[in-house]
Each structure stands twice: as C-alpha cells, then as structure tokens.
C-alpha cells in the first residue's frame, strides 16, 4: 500500500527513494521549482500559506474521497453535501438561533446522514456508486437551495473564525487540513475500517469470503466521506463568512482528480493520505502560480488539464518502468532505469510548464502600475465585454492588467483576490460572485492598503474605493414597464430567472416585480430558473409553453436566456409573444434589430470595464474617486438599436 511504500522508502534510501516511489511528489516539486523561477512572488511565506488555505477545502474533500476510491467506489456528491452542511449550519444558527455548537453538530450530522444514504443505496439497494452519489449530488444541491431559499446566509461570527488565522499567521483552514490529513492517514493505515477499504477495493469477493462485513463497511465508508464533506463545507463557508447554496459546485471532480493524481487507482485497492494531499497541493499551486503569472484565465484551464494528465502519466510510467513485482522496493536491478525515467519525466513537465509560461507571459508590459481584475465568470458575453472594456482602457493608460475568472465560484474568487493581495498590486477590481462572500478577501486587501474597486455588484462588510455598476433594480423596473406597455397593460407572461442565489437574479427579479405593481392587468403565470444559460432557457421555455401555450410576454433576466426562449418560441417570437431581455449583449442587440427580441435592458459592460480601470488607476495613485459610479442602463428597442453600442 502507498503508506507502507512511503515509510519503508524513507527508511531505506532517503529522499531519492521517496521521489521514485511517488511520482506525484516529484511533479509537485517540479511545479514549485518552476513557479519559483518564473515568479518572484511565489516563494514567500505568505504566499505559501495562501496555497495551503486554497488547497484546504479540496484536500479535505479529497481525503473523504480517498476512502471511497480506495474501496473501489466513487462519490460525486461531496461538493453538494459540503454546501448543504454549511447551509444547515448557517440556517439553524442564524435564522433559528440554535446555539452554534449544536448547529455545528447538526451540520456534521447532515453530512454523515447524506453519506449513510449513499452507503445504504449502494450496499443494500445495489445501486452503482456512480448513480447513487449522482442522485445525492442533485438532492444535496437542491436541499441547500430549498433551505436557503436561494440566497446566501451569513455565517455565525464564532464559526467564521475558522477562516481566520491563529496567532496572526497560521490560517485555521491549513490547520484543519493537516488534522484531517493525519486522521485520514490513521484511518487508512491503522484502523479496521481502513484496512478493510483496501481489501474491499482490491477484491470485494475475497474480502467477503474472508469474513469482512462488506456492506456494513461500505455504509461507514460513505458516511466518512459525508463527514469530511461537511467539514470541508464548514471551512469553505467560514472563509467566505457566508453559506452559499451554490458553493463547491464541481468540487467533487477536483477531489477525485486530487486523489488520482496522488497515486490512487479508480479501480480501487491503492491510494493514501499523503498522495491525496500532494494531489490537492498540485492543483492549488497551479491555480495560485498561474494567477501570479497573470496567465490568461482561459489558458489557465488548459494548463491545469494538461498538468493533471501529465502528473498521472508520470506516475503510470514510473510504475510500469519500476516496482512491478515487488510492492515495497527490494530489488536493486532496474533501479537506475527507473530513476532516469522519473527524472526525465520531471524535467519534461518542468520544461513544458516553463515554456508555456514564458510563451503566455510574453506579452505582459512592465509598467509600475499593476491592477488585477477578478471576474465572476467568463461564460457570459456580458462579462467578456467588461473584460474587453477593461483591457482596452488598460492599454490606453499603460496599466498592467491581470484578469482572472472565478467560474462563478465564490471560494475560487477568494483565492484569486488573496493572490492579488499577496502580489502587492496597485489596485484590485472585483466583480463579486457573491457580495457577502467577497467580504473577507476584500477586508484583507483593505488591511494591506490596496484599494478595491467593485464592478457590477457591490461588496458587503468591506471597504471599496468605488462601486461601478448599473442599477439592476432600476433595470428590472424598466423591463417591467417596457413589457407591460407593449402588451397594453394586460396579458399573461412568464419570467425566466437567473441562477438561484446570485444577486443579479435577485435584484432584477425584485425590480421587475416592483415595476409590475403599476400594471395589475399583467399576470405572471410562471417563474422558473434557467441559470442565465441559453440552452437552459430554451429547455425551460419549451416546457413552460406546454403548460401555458397562450403567453403573450416573456421576461428573461438576461439576454442569453431570452435568446433561448426565442428559439423555443420559433416564429411566435416577436409576433404573438414579446420577449424582453437584459444586458444588451451583441447577440441580444442583433436579435432586437431582427425583431425577435422586443427589447433588452442594456447595460454598458464595456463602459463598466473602462470606468472601473480608470477609477482603479486613480485610486492606486492615491487620488480621490467617487464612492459610487452609476453607469446608466437604457432600454434598447428596434427604434434605437442602430445607434447603440455596448
């Protein structure tokens, strides 16, 4: 087993053996060397602690996943369960005044309960683990949205200290990660259930015929995974000071990747705590380093994928070349060949990375004024336009602008902001995934005296030098007025909502509802979320048309969903049904010109980006800036579409 190998290795040949027996560790070291060589900001105590904090949540989830994967299972539900547990904690403590200690116990119990349900479905219901946990992924996410009603809930302050530091320097998440890691090593290496995991993963039938109570063990294994997921959820939420129903989306894949990079096989029977930790650190070092190197957000994902593949490849090749017959290295023969293979591969990884970095890094200018921009997502033309505006302005002003993409994940954004802060940038522009969750990271930027400009959405409980935004509530009201007047003050309409829990969706929806109050003749027959996504807009609208074939109007909280709805409506769009969108994206404006989209409440995202950079530069230079900069929204219809540019 991996733990054995590691230990006997350390005894018999020191560092060299350790590296040979653990391809992932070699890859991690190569990465660290490459990053240190490429960025002067990487190898500082502060930044390394950042990496630790950023690895913590993935690592804790991955420790739980290690149990499951070693026993030849898979748990896809850990991200959802983490979010659900955190939501339960915040909901019981904040909304119901239950003592915090009890709330923490309840949160952990929630995680364990989810794991037990998984385990029960798998061992007694005979469901494949993939299916059982896929179901739990959906159920967990759904329940956390139900409990939180789609909005983030503030985390109790006493628990939020989990996201702080001990003695002013040791971050608690790192401490929790280390403790959970030791616990994992203990469970895997020393306990009955841990040894059973290896036996069950290696050969379930042989384990059963040797008297291991396989079904009972599986229950416990998934319960452990749920427990670790709950712990990860609490750490995640305390870092953000709020429980986000959409937190940790997709983290199950990061966790699985970390376990596999760490040398475990999805076929079961191998894996260990140290390997998993290394796997999680590789992912964190990569994200952190790529941020520091100002690698384009799009390229970051490419590089991360390539490194995951390389790390596992390195391990596979090493295994094939090496320790074939003997589990704990005893053979002297072939050692040199194995060593050569490992070093060559490590060199290739390092060289590939260095090459990629310098290539991607080549265009960066060397001005003194550096600004970082953390966007919530780039999956949406609106934010891409913000970036375009910001970059254009930066070029004009000679500002060195680094853009990162948080992929709608508040915790990833926290990491990026932390990286900006430790780099010591002149100013930071943030487009928060969530206003509450961005608070703690912006506060630490405040502490470092780096001015922060918020764009599109504000940041709560922290100082921002300026908020550059268009008014979503006002926009919602405008949309209501436009649609109602088009319909002549009466008719039935449907509303396509954005991603549950996002402030844009809440504010536009609220504004729209407010605006409709003036038109009692308009009836909203259905409100359904389509997640700001064009495909989902199409699907949801198609479904709604089945139930309400006679709608006359559609309000979509962004243009993407509106365009999806237009697809669903076909020839009725723009003729018998009027669709109003939001954002004024290029596609949306084209549809307005074509007549299929009646109107779009246009923000001016390019303008938002430009103004944000302009203000960031002023703030960095210590000049005064306005607290709020309103970028006007306008209703664009066919009449004025020609003259409008975003």
């Amino acid at each position: 087993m991996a733990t054995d190998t590691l230990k006997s290795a350390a005894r018999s040949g020191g560092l060299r053996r350790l590296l040979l027996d653990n391809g992932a560790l070699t890859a991690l070291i190569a990465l660290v060397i490459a990053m240190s060589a490429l960025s002067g900001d990487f190898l500082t105590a502060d930044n390394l602690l950042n990496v630790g904090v950023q690895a913590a949540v993935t690592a804790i989830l991955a420790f739980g996943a290690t149990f499951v994967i070693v026993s030849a299972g898979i748990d896809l539900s850990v991200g959802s369960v983490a979010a659900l547990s955190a939501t339960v904690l915040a909901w019981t403590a904040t909304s119901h005044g239950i003592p915090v200690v009890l709330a923490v116990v309840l949160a952990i119990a929630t995680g364990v309960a989810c794991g037990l349900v998984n385990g029960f479905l798998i061992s007694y219901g005979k469901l494949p683990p993939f299916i059982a946990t896929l179901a739990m992924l959906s159920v967990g996410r759904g329940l956390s949205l139900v409990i939180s009603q789609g909005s983030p809930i503030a985390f109790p302050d006493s628990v939020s200290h989990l996201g702080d530091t001990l003695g002013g320097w040791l971050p608690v998440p790192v401490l929790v990660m280390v403790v959970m890691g030791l616990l994992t090593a203990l469970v895997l290496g020393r306990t009955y259930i841990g040894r059973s995991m290896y036996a069950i993963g290696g050969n379930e039938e042989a384990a059963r015929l040797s008297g291991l109570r396989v079904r009972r063990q599986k229950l416990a294994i998934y319960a452990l995974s749920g427990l670790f997921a709950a712990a990860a959820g609490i750490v995640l939420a305390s870092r953000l000071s709020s429980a986000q129903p959409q937190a940790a989306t997709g983290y199950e894949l990061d966790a699985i990747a970390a376990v596999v990079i760490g040398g475990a096989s999805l076929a079961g029977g191998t894996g260990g705590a140290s390997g998993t930790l290394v796997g999680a650190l590789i992912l964190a070092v990569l994200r952190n380093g790529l941020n520091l190197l100002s690698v384009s957000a799009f390229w970051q994902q490419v590089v991360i994928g390539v490194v995951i593949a390389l790390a596992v490849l390195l391990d596979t090749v090493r295994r094939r070349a090496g320790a074939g017959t003997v589990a704990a290295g005893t053979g002297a023969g072939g050692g040199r060949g194995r060593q050569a293979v490992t070093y060559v591969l490590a060199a290739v990884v390092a060289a590939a990375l260095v090459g990629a970095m310098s290539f991607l890094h080549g265009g960066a200018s060397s001005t003194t004024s550096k600004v970082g921009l953390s966007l919530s997502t780039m999956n949406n033309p609106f934010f891409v336009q913000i970036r375009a505006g910001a970059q254009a302005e930066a070029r004009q002003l000679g500002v060195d602008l680094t853009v990162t993409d948080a992929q709608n994940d508040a915790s990833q954004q926290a990491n990026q902001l932390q990286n900006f802060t430790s780099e010591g940038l002149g100013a930071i522009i943030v487009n928060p995934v969530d206003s509450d969750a961005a608070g703690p990271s912006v506060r630490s930027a405040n502490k470092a005296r780096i001015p922060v400009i918020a764009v599109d959405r504000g940041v709560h409980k922290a100082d921002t030098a300026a908020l550059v935004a268009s008014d979503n509530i006002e926009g919602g009201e405008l949309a209501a007025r436009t649609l109602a007047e088009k319909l002549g003050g009466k008719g039935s309409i449907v509303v396509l909502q954005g991603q549950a829990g996002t402030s844009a969706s809440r504010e536009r929806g609220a504004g729209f509802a407010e605006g409709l109050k003036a038109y009692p003749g308009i009836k909203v027959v259905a409100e359904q979320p389509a997640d700001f996504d064009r495909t989902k807009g199409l699907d949801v609208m198609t479904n709604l048309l089945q139930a309400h074939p006679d709608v006359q109007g559609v309000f979509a909280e962004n243009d993407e969903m509106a365009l999806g709805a237009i697809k669903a409506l076909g020839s009725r769009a723009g003729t018998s049904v009027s669709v109003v969108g939001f954002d004024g994206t290029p596609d949306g404006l084209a549809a307005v010109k074509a007549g299929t989209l009646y109107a779009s409440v246009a923000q001016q995202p390019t303008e938002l980006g430009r103004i944000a950079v302009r203000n960031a530069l002023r703030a960095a230079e210590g000049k005064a800036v306005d607290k709020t900069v309103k970028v006007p929204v306008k209703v664009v219809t066919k009449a004025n579409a020609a003259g409008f540019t975003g």
Partner: protein
Amino acid sequence: MSDTEELLRIEGIRKTFPGVVALDGVDFDLRRGEVHVLLGENGAGKSTLIKMLSGAHRPDAGRVLVDGEEVRIHDAQDAERLGIATIYQEFNLVPDLSVAENIFLGRQPRRFGMIDRKRTEADAAELLERVGLSVSPRARVRELGIARLQMVEIAKALSLDARVLIMDEPTAVLTSGEVDRLFTIVRRLREDGVGIVFITHHLEEIAALGDRVTVIRDGRSVGQVPAATPRDELVRLMVGRSIDQQYPRERTDAGAALLTVEGLTRDGVFHDVSFQVRAGEVVGVAGLVGAGRTEVARAVFGADPYDSGTVHVSGARLRRHDVNAAMAAGIGLVPEDRKGQGLVLDASVAENLGLVTLRAATRGGLVDRKAQRAAAARVAERLGVRMAGLGQRVRTLSGGNQQKVVIGKWLLANTKVLILDEPTRGIDVGAKVEIYQLINELTAGGAAVLMISSDLPEVLGMSDRVLVMAQGRMVGELPASAATQDSVMALAVSTPTSNEAATEVEAARGH
C-alpha cells in the same frame, strides 16, 4: 530433421524483471506436426516463455527464429502475422457476443463495408465442425460451459491459420471426458501439420499426447526428453529431486463429528445433501464439474443462501447465509477461484495473510499491525511461501505460493473445519505435495478437512472417505479402502433416482 520441418526455435532466451530473473538461457524448438510438452513447476518460467511468443513480453537476450529466420515479436499482431496463436487459461472471449462474432472478432468478413453476418456464421460453423463442437454459431458465449469455451478459443486460433498453437494448461479445468475430446482434436490438428506447445501439470497426459518434452526449472531449460520418459524421471527433472510419494496421507483416528450437514437444499441447484466430517478426517468430494459441489461448499460456509436443511458445527446450528457466523464457528473456505475469490491480488502477502484475523487483531478500531505482520511472517515461514518478502504483491507469486497464502490466512484463524475447493488446481507437483503435507498437519492437530477436487487420483490418494455428487445430489459414500477410479466414476456419472428440476438444469449445462 530437415529445416523445413522446424517451425520455431528459441535460443538462449533471458528475461529479467526488477529483482527477479524469470528466464535465464532457455532453448526450445518446435516442428511441424508435433505436440511438444513444456513441463515445469509453477514459477519455473513457462508462462513468461509463452508470453515472449505471443508478444506480451520481449526478451532481454537470446533469439527467436520462425521458419529459420530471426524475428522480433513486439505485440499480438506480430504473433498473429507469424501464425502463432496462444490459448491462455483465462480465455479472451467477450461473453455477450455470439460464438461466430468471437471467433472473427475484429476480422469479420465484410460486404459493402457492412459486416457480412451470413458469411461470418457459415465460416464459423465450418471451424466449429473442425473442432468437433456442436453449438450454434449464434449462441452467446456467456451461455457456454468452460469446455466449450476452450473449443471456441481453438476455433478462433484455427481461423487465424495458426501454424503454432500454444495451449497453457488446457486440461486444468476439464473433466476426464472433456479431456479425451480435447485430445482427439489436438491429435487431428497435429495430423494437419500444426505444431503444438502444450503445457500441463498432469504427467499422465504427456505419454498420452506428447511427442517431446522440454523441462524448465528455475528459468532454465534443464532437458529435452521423449514423451515416453518414465514419470519418476520427469518429476526428478522438474523438481530437481525425486519425490517419493505423491500422496503422503497420514491417517489419524477420527474423533467427534465437527461438521454435520443435513438435508441441505437449494431449489434447482442441490438437493437433500447430508454428510458429516469428523475431527482428524479428510473427506473428499468427487463428481463431475457442475455436479453442485462448489455450490454446497459455499452454502455451508454461508457465502450463498440455501432453501432448507441445517448446518451444525460441533453441535451448534449455524445461521443461514452468514459468513461471519460460519467463521466464528471455525469454518474456513479456500475457494475454487483463487484469484477471483481468495486473494486481494494487488495487496501484499502480509495483508492477504492477515485478512481473516483483521477483526480479531483490532482493539478500539485500531489494528495491531505489528502483531499482524509477525503472525504473517510466522505462517509464511511455516508454509514455506517462496517470496521476495512479506511486502511482495500476491499477484506476482506463482500459483502454488498463492494457494499457500489462501490456506495460510485460515491457519492463522485457528480454523477447525477447512473446506478446500480444488486446492491444487494449476499447481505443480512439488507445491502439491507441500499442500498435502499441510492437510496432514491440520488433521493431526484435530481439524477436519473437506476437500472438493476434480483430480481423481488426488481424491483417492488423500481422502479418508470419498463422497460422490452427481446432478446436485449426494449419490454415494465410499471408504478410502473401497474407492477406486472406476467405482467413483461409476457413481459420478449415475443419474439420481428421484428426478427433479435439478436434472434439467444440469442437463441444460450439458458438459
């Protein structure tokens, strides 16, 4: 012999794996129309050698010549091109495809770019005819018994126009009738000019089928002798010493009944099975493959449920379908499928030896791994497991040593009733004797052994009593003194008088 007759020649082949020299100077040759037996203990290097010929491994040194020309076999395609086909013990068939599709897998005749199903089936029928297998080309491979699967493999090899056919222990899993059929086919192939490399542990098969024998020991070819060589001489060549007694059973006085099974029935599988095993006794269970012996053993051990009947151990009744209750009462099972059910192949020797005692070695959730390791070292020493160390992965041990590990885990648990299901299948002579000696030690210590085996000489040689099963029923019990090959076989092929669903099921399997 003229050169044209020589199909294959291997000279001075050497192959090392990290820490192990698998082959060190092996010579071998094969002529047209001969059966050349490759003989050696497990772990001697036979498998490694045939993997060189099928392209799975590449030699570190030495030459391989086909038709007098030196060749390099890098992969299965190279082997196929040279006309070398290998039939492994684990068949390479896709269970849910038809027989015809399996035979022509990847090479189906095509018409207009589509698979020509008619021709595939017609061609397959012809090949099946050649190997004397009467089964529809459209039958799913999953539905076939093991003997037929082997025939399908041979048909597949023939479809490749194989001139060299390598068969790795083809008789290990066959009943004697099936073996006879296989031999008929092999002889016919020999007449057609195919050269056959035949691996077996059954020495009597050598005289019956072989022309020449090459003996491999510890990775070296130690001799090439005619097939008519006396058995003792073959054994001496193979193990490097002579074995006095093949079945060294030492009888002890039987004590009280330890295992009592009464009226055990699972509808459609086995019926009204009753027997006793007493302390210090070895009871053999003979019968044809599919007679229900393994199913009874698994039911007794609690691995599978049964519908009626009782199992008592030392007078206490066992809960149905509860492995842990059986283990607590002192029953152990060494399953038929060593790799699939007996071992965690990628775990170490120590881990495997400690599996059964894992729970007992746990205090407050923590396993005392030091004690586990010490116990494993002790039992490995006692069993003479040949390994690089306790950390070696079980997958890389030879078959005999793997079996010792499976038995060893039960020894550690102080098992009182050990059920052995085909304990020496695929194991060489030397290791077999060691396992028999272990059985002696167990019974001398007051344990009871129930031994299921399809190797009739073994059943006769090692048992104190022989039970015979046929078609899911216990059809007879013979004391060791009265049991002969003929008397046991007569019972094994008999039809039980009361006729029920069981008969149909077995008939449908039709070996």
